[in-house]
Structures are given as C-alpha cells and as structure tokens.
C-alpha cells in the first residue's frame, strides 16, 4: 500500500487560513489502512482545525466525508454537487487524491493533508516500513525476496557496503541493513555463490528517471 504521514497541523492551518467553509475528504484506500486519512483521521483533523479557529476567534464550518477511493474518477464524481459549497477542500488521500480532485473540479482549491511517503506495509500496528521503490523492473528474485533497491539506503546492487554494522545500516541504528539479511539468508541456504555474480548497471528508464510513467493495457483500454 501507499504509506503517508499527516502533515503538521500548522501547515494545514496556513493552507486554509482564509477559508470559511471547508470540506475534509478522507479516502478509504491505502490511507485508511495506514491510519492516516480515513474517516477517523478526517474527524480528528476537522476537530483540530475547529479548535484552532475557535481559539483565534475566526470560526469556520468544516464538514467531513470519505470517498471509497480518490484515485478513481467515478468516486471523485460523487462530490459533484458538494464541492462547490466550500471555499477550500482538503484531501487526506495520497498525492493522487488532490490531483484527481483538481482535474475533476478545476474551479476548486484542493489542499493535501498528508505527505505521501512510500510503498510499504505494516510490520506491526502503528509501524509501517518501505518495501518497494517502484523502480519498474523488479529484481527481488535475485536477492531471495529482499529488495536492495528500496531497502538499501544506497540502493546497492552489490552490497553490503563498509558501513554495515551488526546487521544495521550506517545511517541509523534502527535501520536494518538489508544486505546483511540478504547475505545471511544466502549463507543459510548455501547459495552464497549467487552473490559472486556481477550485476550490470541497472536500467533506470522504467523508474521515475524515465519521466512520468503510464501503464497502458491494450486489451483493456478502448
């Protein structure tokens, strides 16, 4: 899933400082699952903003709603009769949400309430970790199911670098050195020879480096 963090309240407050009627839109997709942009968080954000405004003596109206997903135009269209009533709309979805909203309703101002961070999953309740960098050419099978592109802080294809210490990365004690895991797994399984192979320089064209990406499925697209 896409993992995001809520923006600091102050930043959101500034975005909507001059608005009098605001709609907060949650998304039932990834951001609900990663506990950052579902109905619960929409309510919390709305209440926090109201408290801030009431404190400053500039009351406003805030409504909350949640869409099934903000990355499909059909759900965006459900807001057709609604968005016009507000002078600011805050999206709690990933970066896709505010853009789909802006494209559908060019007259309206949309603001992102979250910082979209990475593709990952929950390792336990409340902790999410990156697993995929979306490079467009998956090489996980070379590394026994562990991706050094996303999980090595230098994206090394031949690791570990000299900074690997006691299974941790040089950048922080709480960051796992993925190469340590890869090497140990290969050792345990007696397949260390796999790591004697030279991997040619990666072709980054399929990643974001190749420009904005699209996926076209001929048999589906009309």
């Amino acid at each position, binding site marked *: 899933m896409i993992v995001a963090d809520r923006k600091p309240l102050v930043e959101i407050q500034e975005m909507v400082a001059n608005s009098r009627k605001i709609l907060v839109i949650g998304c039932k*997709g990834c951001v*609900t*699952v990663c506990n950052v942009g579902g*109905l619960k968080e929409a309510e919390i954000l709305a209440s926090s903003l109201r408290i801030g405004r009431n404190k400053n003596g500039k009351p406003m109206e805030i409504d909350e709603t*949640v869409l099934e997903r903000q990355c499909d135009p059909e759900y965006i269209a459900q807001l057709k009769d609604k968005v016009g009533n507000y002078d600011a709309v805050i999206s709690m979805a990933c970066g896709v949400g505010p853009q789909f909203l802006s494209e559908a309703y060019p007259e309206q101002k949309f603001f992102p309430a979250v910082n979209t961070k990475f593709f990952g999953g929950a390792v336990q309740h409340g902790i999410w970790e990156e697993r995929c960098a979306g490079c467009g050419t998956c090489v996980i099978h070379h590394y026994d199911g562990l991706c050094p592109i996303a999980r090595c802080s230098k994206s090394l294809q031949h690791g570990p670098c000299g900074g690997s210490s006691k299974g941790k990365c040089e950048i922080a004690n709480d960051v796992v050195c993925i190469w340590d895991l890869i090497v140990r797994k290969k050792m345990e399984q007696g397949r260390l020879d796999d790591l004697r192979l030279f991997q040619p320089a990666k072709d980054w064209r399929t990643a974001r480096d190749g420009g904005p990406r699209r996926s076209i499925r001929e048999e589906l697209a009309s």
Partner: protein
Amino acid sequence: MTLAEKRKLGSVLVVGAGVAGIQASLDMANSGFYVHLVDRSPSVGGIMAQLDKTFPTNDCAMCVISPFLVEVGRHLNIHVIPCSELERLDGEKGDFKATIVNHPRYIDTEKCTGCGQCRQVCPVVAINEFNCGLDLRKATYIPYPQAVPLAYAIDRNACIGCGMCEKVCLAGAVTYDDKTKITELEVGSVILAPGGEMYDPKEADSWSYSHPNVVTSLEFERILSASGPYRGHLMRPYDREEPEKIAWLQCVGSRDINRAKNSHCSSVCCMYAIKQTMIAKEHSAHELDTAIFYMDMRTYGKDFDKYYSRAKEERGVRFIRSRVHSIEPVENGNLRLRYVKESGESVEEIFNMVVLSVGFKPSSGVETIAKKLGLTLNEQHFFRTGDIRPVATSRDGVYVCGVSHGPKDIPQSVMEASAAASVATSDLSSARWSATRTPQLPPETDFSKMVPRIGVFVCNCGINIGGVADVPAIREYAKTLPHVVHVEDNLFTCSQDTQERMKQVIREKNINRVVVASCSPRTHEPLFQETIREAGLNKYLFEMANIRDQNTWVHKNNPDLATAKAKDLVRMAVAKAEYIEPLHQVKLDVKPAVLIVGGGVAGMEAALGAAEQGFQAYLVEKTDTLGGMAHQLRKTWQGEDIPAYLERLIKDVTNHSKIQIFLNTKPVHFTGTIGSFTTTLNDIHTGNPNGIIEHGAAILATGGREYRPEGYQYGNRPDVMTHLDLDQAMKDTPATVMNADTIVFIQCVGSRNSDRPYCSRVCCTHTLKNAIELKKIKPGMNIFVMYRDVRSYGFRESLYQEARALGVHFIRFDPENPPQMNIAENNILTITVTDHILQRPIVISPDLVVLAAAVLPNENKELFELFKVPVNAEGFLVEAHAKLRPVDFGSEGLFLAGLAHYPKSIDESIAQARAAVSRAVTIVSKDGIMVGGVVAAVNPDRCAVCCTCVRACPYGIPFIGNEGHAVIQQAECHGCGVCVSECPGKAITLQHFTDQQLIAKTRALFYQPAMNE
C-alpha cells in the same frame, strides 16, 4: 427408602464467604444449583478484601475481587446469609437439613440502602477490625466501602443505645430489637470454607509485639492500602514517621513448635513478605531499606522465583538467612534486632519498624464446625483431607476448600473451591436447575423509530443527596431538558415501593428511556435495569447520573456548586439517553459435552468429573495408554497408594458410559466459540480422521515430564538416577537401592537456573518422602540432601521434621557453588559440596546419587497454536488471571489443568482437574449462552479490512472473514472498546458506548439546551 428413591436436592450450602466460598458459590449457582452462602461476618470477602496488593503480579486485591463480590451479591441463585453460622447438619449426602443461627445485625439488610447516614451520626467509636485495630470506626458501621451486602450493622458491644441512628434512618432499617434466629435449610451437599486466621503474636511473648512499631503482616497490608488507616501513606504507628528501614521476620507462628506450637509452614508468607517489601519501596518517598529474615525462601509457585529474584536483584531487597533471636525496643521508637549470620557472626541492627510475617492458623470456626458435624481434624487442627480426594472431608457429602484444611495462597484456594463445587454437585446432577430461580419477564416493548420519551428519577437518598444539594431544583431543572416527559424525586429511588412506582410510571407515560440520578451505577445500575426490564423496557434503555458518591458526598461544603454539578450530570445523562438504543442479547446453543486433551491423571479426573456431572466427555490421548506420568509414581506425599488409585481411575474412565476415549489421537482442527466448538481428531500414526466432535468447552491437560539432566554423569552410570528412576528401582529392584550405604540427593537439578527460572515445586517433598522411606527400612543408611531451600510447604513441613529426626543430613549450597561430582580413576564417585555452617568443603562418596530433576511441560506447540492458548517463556500454559481465574484461559470456554499449567503434586493436579470441570460445567450446563450487549459491532460498509482491530484487540478476537470484512464474534468480545477507538474507518462501534452517545454526553456539559416545550 431404597437408595434409588433417595431425594436429591438442587440446593447447596457454602459456609464461609471468603474468596474460596465465593468462587464455589458462583460456580455452583452458574451451573444450576441454588446456593446458600453463610458467613459469620456482616459481609463477604474474607481476608482477601483486606489485602492491598497480590503477588506475583502486584495487582490491586480490591480491584480483582470486587467484581466477584458484586456478582455474588446480585446473583439470583445465591442467597447470602451474613452474620450467621452453621449450627447442625442432619441427614445425609443428597438430602441434608442444615440448621443456621442468624445473629442479630440490628439493621435490616432488605431496607438498608447503604447510605451511611447512621454512621455519620453515631457518637460511639470502636476498634476497626477491618484495619486490624490501627484505627477506629463507629459502632454503626460497614466493614469496608465495597462490602457486599451493602448494608450497615450495629456493633452492640460498643453501642450505647442512644437511638440517633434510628432517628436519622429514613429507610426505617434500624431494628434495635433484632434477635437471634434459627433457620433451617434443605441442601444436597455442603462446602466448608471457613478459612483461616492469622497467627496472633501475642500468644507468645517473643517478638516485642506489644511495641507499636512491631506490626503483623496483615496490619502492614492495611498500612499499605490506599483505603487503609493511613490512606496508603507508609508510616509507622508509633509516631507516624516514615520508616527508612523495615525488617520482616518470617515464620512467625509457623514452622515453630517452641513458641507457637505450629509445625506447619504457612505457604504464603515468603511471597507476601517479598511483595510487601516491593510495595513499601514504591510507597516510600525516599530510599527504603528492607530486609527479610528467613529460614528457607519458599517461592515455589508459578512465577514466584522470578518475583524473588526481581526483589533481590532489581529492587535491592536484603534477604538474610537467619532467625532473629531478639527484638529489643530502643530510643526513638526503633527496634534493635540481634541475629546470627550463617557464617556464625553475631550482628546487631537497628530498624525503624518490624513486620512479623505471621502464619495461618485455622479459623476458630473450624474446630466448632468439626465438632458439630463430626469431622476429623489433623494434628494442626485444620480439617483433615487426603491426597486422592483432596476436597472431601470425613463425612460424605461435606466438602472443604481454602485455608480451613491447610495454608495456601489465593489461586490454590480458588482452584479448590471450584473443585469442591464440582464434586459437591456431581451427585446432585439429576436435581440441576430444580431449585434455581429464573426471572419471569414481560416481552420487551418495541420502541424503534419512536422519539425518545425520557423519565428522570432524582433520588434524595434520605438526606445523603437532598441534605446537600437542592433536589427540588434539580428536579425542576430536569423538566426543562429535551425529550424529558416525566420527572420526580424520591426519598430512596432504590426502595421497593419506588421501584414499583417506576414501573407504573413507565407504562402510564410510555417512557422509553429512564435516567436515575442517585448513587453509583457500579452498585445500583443492575437493580434499576431489572426494574425497567420488568416494565417491558430493554435494560440498556437506562442511564445514571452519579450525584451522590461523586457529588454530594464529596462537595458537602459547597451545596450550591453541588446542586449546579448535579444539574450538569443530569443534563449529561439525559443527553446520552437520547441516543441509547436497546441491545438484544442473542442466545447461542450449547453443546453439552466437554473435550479433554491429555489422558494423564488430570485429564482422566476431568473426564470423569464431567461425566459424573452428566455431560458427555471426549478424552483424547496421544499415546496408546492412559495414565501419563502417574504410572511412574508410587505414593502421594501423605503415603496414599498411587498405582491402586490409577488402576481404579483408568477402570472408571474406561467403563463410564459418558466417556469416549480416543487413544493415539490428536486434535488437528478447532473452530467455534464458547458453548459450541467443533474439533477434528486424527489418528496420530495414520493421519486419518478419528472423528469430528462438538463440545461446549475444552480442558487442556497435556501434562509434563521429568527433565533428563545434563551433567552429573546422568545416563552414563547406573548409580546416578533421577527421582522417577529411583521410584522405578524401588518398585522393580529394591535391592539395588537398599544395598547402598550412602545416598546423596541433589536438589534443583535443572530448576531455578537461568534456563528454567522456576521452582519445580514437588522435588523437595519427593526427596523427603524417599529419604524417610529409605531411613525407615535401613536406619543405618547415610542420607545427604544437598539443597538450596527446603520447600516443604504447608503440612509437608512435617516430612522435613521427620527426615531430620531420622538423621537425614541436610547441606545447603549456593547456586554459584553447586555440588561437584568427581569420578576417580578407580571409577569411585565422590561429591564435593561447601557446607555453609562448617564453612568448608565436604567430600562424600555415595553409593547412589539421586537428582531431583526439574518438571518440564510437555511440548505441544502445534496443539497450543491450534487452540490459540498462550504459553510462558518456560512453556507452561498461561491462565486468564494468576489469582482468581487459575484454571480458565483468557479465551472463553477453554480451561487447563495439571502439569501443563505448572509443576504440582498429584493432589493439586486432581483438584485443578476437578476445578476445570466445575468451570466447564458453568458453560455446558446451560441450554444457551446469551451474547451481545456491551460488545463491539462491525459495520461492513465502512470496513477497510486494514487489520487494525485484529492487531489492536488484546484478546485476538477480531478476524477478517470470508465475506471480506472484519468479524468480531459477540460471544467472544470482552467489550473494552480498544478496537473501536483505533479503527481508522470508524467501522466499529462499542454498543452502549458509541461515539455519538459519548460525544453527546460531552457536549451536554457545555451546552445549556433551549427550554423544553
């Protein structure tokens, strides 16, 4: 009458309402019997209610026990008879007539509302026994605020008869002319749980107990207690100074035949002393020095040794192995202790305070009851019981549990209480539900889609509320609130006549929500809920405003603000009431069968117990024989014949028509919820299905085994053996053992170390028993026992005394310096150990070395995962609560027994197995389980299947169902609401505590609504 015609009664009598009596009563009442619960004192609770915290979890004792007190007090099928004693018992098993003496209380419990006005005006003070005499109470009193029944009593020894209480009691409950009464009860069986008392150090003049700063451990509990005489502030009685140095003296009144004439070990004092040191340190504002003077540290229970080492290593409690020989008062209220260290060095030390760890003696009632009922007592004047029938007395149909037949801790008492409940009712199963009461209720009126019509009842509580707050003003104010259609104020809203009136008003005015502004929902909500239910309202259409306990009682000095606050609280309650909804409990079918996994003694006793109770038992054993570890044992600690018992038990189990045995079988699939489980059994060898069984409860009795020692040449030499090897040899080739001239027993082999930081509990007793037997056969034999602490708890202490008297040598060693084994070139084996008294190494050349090897749980990872039951770091199963739910698992409907729980002797295993049956029968005896109410409910439309609830639930109840949304089974949900507050999609609601209801209540505090039209 012939045997077949004999009457079986469906009611039972329990004597003693301490924690054991309470547990026995609840189990029986919850499995279809009507219980008369008699206690001498004005309220239930026993000693546990006086404790501050409980070991080894340091849980607050009152927090743990009070839900049990409340349940007993409100149970439709438990008749609490306080201030009463059993006078005589006629008849026989199944059909007794019990004569009860009811002592006068001088206050009618039916009328008393517990408002306490009588106490306020009472001019006389008396010693407060509940606080061990450390403070005073009035002559009109209630032992403690959470007491059940919540009714006052008059201490006529102190009362001067001024009549003040009678004058102020608006409920008219005071009855000065109360007389002793005699009642007769017809009961099928009797459980005695009169409990114990603490040894009174005044009996011997040895501990300077007359000095105020020398207190007993129970007094110290009260000192530590937040509701005690010093409100939890750690002070010493003499000058109310905070002590900086406290000494605990163990074995005061226990293991002492000189001063106290009590030879037994009291089993609990080591642990409670450790607990008190730790809690005292927490209570102390400064660094508190604590020292425990002891002989042997007997921390033999589950997680006890860890607790001990935590105290020693982390909290810096000093443990001094020495008996203090004098306590001498010195200046400033301090005390000088003189003692001799193990090394022989004499030491003097000054302490600010001394706590005497007093032991148990039987309650004074024990001897009286024994005389009246013709029961046998043991040498220590406790009820005598055997090992194979651990809760049976010498009179058929009369059972016993708790401290009255031996010192023990709370979980052991609770286990025995359940065991007694089970055996006391197994012969009465034909009379199950025959004497119980079921409420007759009208159908519930359907109010759906109707606007709220709220009725508000404001209580004066005599003058408890009305004497402080302006009740008429509150009443008039309530009339202005939205949706309120009726308001009245009552002298006592809880009185019988008001309850009737309330029902009438509900019907007349079509009221569909009721708000009572009075005392606490904790004590009175169930009563009012019953009343509105009788008027046809769903019991959840009720809300309370606590305007007494949390208002007039605490804001006496500020009537205006108290009135204003009462208005706020009423407004908040009304605001929530607008949104409350009826909650319908659903009845789920119960399968009247019990699955028992494990065919050892515990498993077989459980199967037999369930079958005797009239339920189908499925007994699953993975090997091809029943009996388990018991096959390797010879005698119980009291000398009862185990092989003969085992043979009989296997025969009974095999022949019982209600028991189906599956050998070579293991469960491979398990589903369902409490009351209705389905388990698939497979043949362990072929892997083919053996059957699919449906059952309402399951008991895991998967047993344990003896540790195979590493080291001490075990396995390499025939002259090194474990206890079980020795038992086998004594059975098969006794000559090989009896030829030995010198035998060394080494204790704690594989126990109490870093791998297994627990005491195996049974080994000391096993060693003592074998040593005595050997000495008796061959008095010339040299027997050495190398030990760390001799843990012959309870009456087992007599074995220790006997062994010493027979000349068995006991040599203590430190874990850092264990006995060393040497094999010389000529293959001669020697053991070297450092003697603590002689302070030098001793070399012994034994002919036989017996290793007291640890008890390990059987490994059953797959099975435990299948049943989703937790195990601790050592592999033992973890019970729901260390104190009060010792045979339950956290998951409802699952129970445990035997060595899989913790090492224990055969009598303790039997008791636990029978206890598990009792707990299981509370489920399978019902025709249905009501589920629902205050539980979580999922709205599938909002569910994002994010697994937040799955991860957040402390009980692992939610799961993602095949339908693609989270599922929370009503039958399993505990109703805490954690998942609700975590759910990012707001897909879960906690019924009766919804966001809408609680936010409405919150808002109402700050909004004055517009006037009601």
